[in-house]
């Protein structure tokens, strides 16, 4: 029956495809507009906002590269996002591993503690956080941002990873134990390779908001040399004039890495999203 319903000529299927197609257009349109506008001059954007650019000139990008601080911001964002996600995955996986694979007193308490982090937005605690970071000498410092992002994203990471780790059969662990592997070795060589899809999910899920974050850099970073991309791009909103062409070029550059990561990892991402459900 179900195969009959899913015949390609079926009305339901058509409606579904139309719906998905419209949805895709709505999602992609602003991104395409942004990318196209980055090739236009300011005048062109206002005279013919919806048309294709007259020529694909890289002038705006050249301006970004040579006359602005964007390359520097780009590097800062890369460092902050990269290190945050790295620390996050290492620490988060280890925490999730302990919580999901071992029985010990306080296991549930610690799990709930992590879960509570999902419910409390860190922004609520911005003042104490500022005082604390100041005391630690981490204000106006990329390390401070990395600490905040790691802590902020840990609950979700532990949550995602615990679910995946729980689904792995314990016989694998037993088998490795019989083979003489130490607990650490079992984790690193046997279990973690099996949850790389989960790590990709956790990585992307956390990298996107960290990369795009505007709030924490705004509060904690003052010096121009430590600004991140999202924060740095506001410099293009001048008091009297805005060069939209250059702004769009900057935004395009800012969106590019995450899009690339997503495209490259999307197969694993989807595999990971469904793996938990089937196995």
């Amino acid at each position, binding site marked *: 029956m179900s195969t009959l319903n899913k015949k390609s000529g079926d009305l339901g299927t058509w409606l579904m495809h139309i719906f998905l197609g419209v949805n895709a257009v709505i999602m992609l349109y602003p991104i395409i507009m942004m990318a196209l506008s980055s090739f236009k001059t300011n005048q062109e954007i206002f005279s013919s906002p919806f048309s294709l650019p007259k020529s694909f000139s890289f002038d705006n990008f050249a301006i970004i590269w040579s006359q602005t601080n964007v390359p520097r911001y780009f590097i800062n964002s890369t460092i902050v996002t990269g290190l945050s996600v790295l620390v996050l995955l290492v620490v988060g996986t280890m925490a999730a591993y302990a919580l999901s694979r071992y029985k010990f007193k306080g296991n549930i308490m610690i799990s709930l503690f992590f879960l509570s982090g999902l419910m409390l937005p860190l922004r609520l605690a911005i003042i104490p956080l500022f005082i604390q970071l100041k005391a630690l000498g981490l204000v106006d410092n990329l390390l401070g941002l990395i600490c905040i992002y790691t802590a902020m994203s840990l609950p979700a990471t532990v949550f995602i990873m615990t679910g995946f780790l729980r689904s792995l*059969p314990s*016989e694998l662990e037993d*088998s490795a*134990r*019989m*083979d*003489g592997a130490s607990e650490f070795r079992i984790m690193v060589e046997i279990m973690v390779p099996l949850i790389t899809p989960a790590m990709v999910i956790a990585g992307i899920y956390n990298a996107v908001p960290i990369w795009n974050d505007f709030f924490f850099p705004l509060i904690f970073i003052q010096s121009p040399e430590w600004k991140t991309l999202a924060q740095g791009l506001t410099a293009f909103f001048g008091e009297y004039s805005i060069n939209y062409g250059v702004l769009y070029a900057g935004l395009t550059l800012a969106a590019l890495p995450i899009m690339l990561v997503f495209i490259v990892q999307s197969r694993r991402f989807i595999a990971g999203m469904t793996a938990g459900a089937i196995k």
Partner: protein
Amino acid sequence: MATIELRDVTKDFGGVQVIHGANLSIEDNEFVVFVGPSGCGKSTLLRLLSGLEELSAGEIYIDGERIDHLPPARRGLAMVFQSYALYPHMTVYQNMSYALKVARKSKQEIEEKVRAAAEILQLTELLDRKPKALSGGQRQRVAIGRAIVRDPSVFLFDEPLSNLDAKLRVQMRIELTNLHKQLQSTMIYVTHDQVEAMTMADKIVVMRSGHIEQVGAPLDLFNKPVNKFVAGFIGSPAMNFFKGQIISADEGTYEAQLDNGTQFKFKAQAGRLTVQDSIDLGVRPEDLQPGNTGAGTLMGKATAVERLGAQTYAYLSSPINENMIIHYAGDLDIQSGEEIEVSFNLDSCHLFGPDEQRIEFEG
């Protein structure tokens, strides 16, 4: 090449005792099968032996040396799991060599051992494949290969064939028996399938709810089950039981009456039974004959008949036993719904007293 000795091995999980003081000795080079219904503690006993679970009390010796405090890898055992537990991200070669790699053996030694094991199990062609590209039987062989390369003194198998289809299971059963001959090592095998137990074992350990009920050679268990449980568990189809009562007891000569009125006399140890003791008479399906030819007779209505040509199984319903099975070697022309008479001879029967323990006939 190892003897194993279990002394008063006890295990409880959170206050619930699952193994109640198991005592067992296993000879060198023996093929021992732990068998019992699910939840009887046979797998737990195996895990205690392997070191994956810790003992609550008791001692385990291998070759006279106490090993129950050692971690799994240092007990000289290898285990094959029910789900094979192959590492999915490693090739067959890496799977088989993992234990040796952990033990820091030289590359050359690893290579030699893996090749040798692959040869024995006909896996040489498959060494570069990942487990997901293998069939069930091949995965099973890899799991065994992984055990072999470690050159263990004892092999532990935890229901290794239960994930295979029936045909493959028979084939692997034979392969495992041959492997045992070839490797000359002690093997312990857990299964709930009594056919596997009967065909493979040198010695069967029958377990029920954490107790070892009987230990012995397969045919000893079949011919002389020590209690009603073992009698009902070993043998396929299962033994038929008829309830009855002792109606007279005199110096070792007893007379009993089954619930359908059939009476019979027998001799047994004097004083073992008294009048009004309830008894169970066990008769194997193949010992029930159609027609009135034996000492005791029963009437039953056939509820189902399976005529296989060379043999016939008839399922009978009678007031004394609603699911009675008879096995007739040959073709028996009866129809379902037919009322038939079956009979048995006392020499081929098993008698169990009110405590469900075996009562030995005398004379």
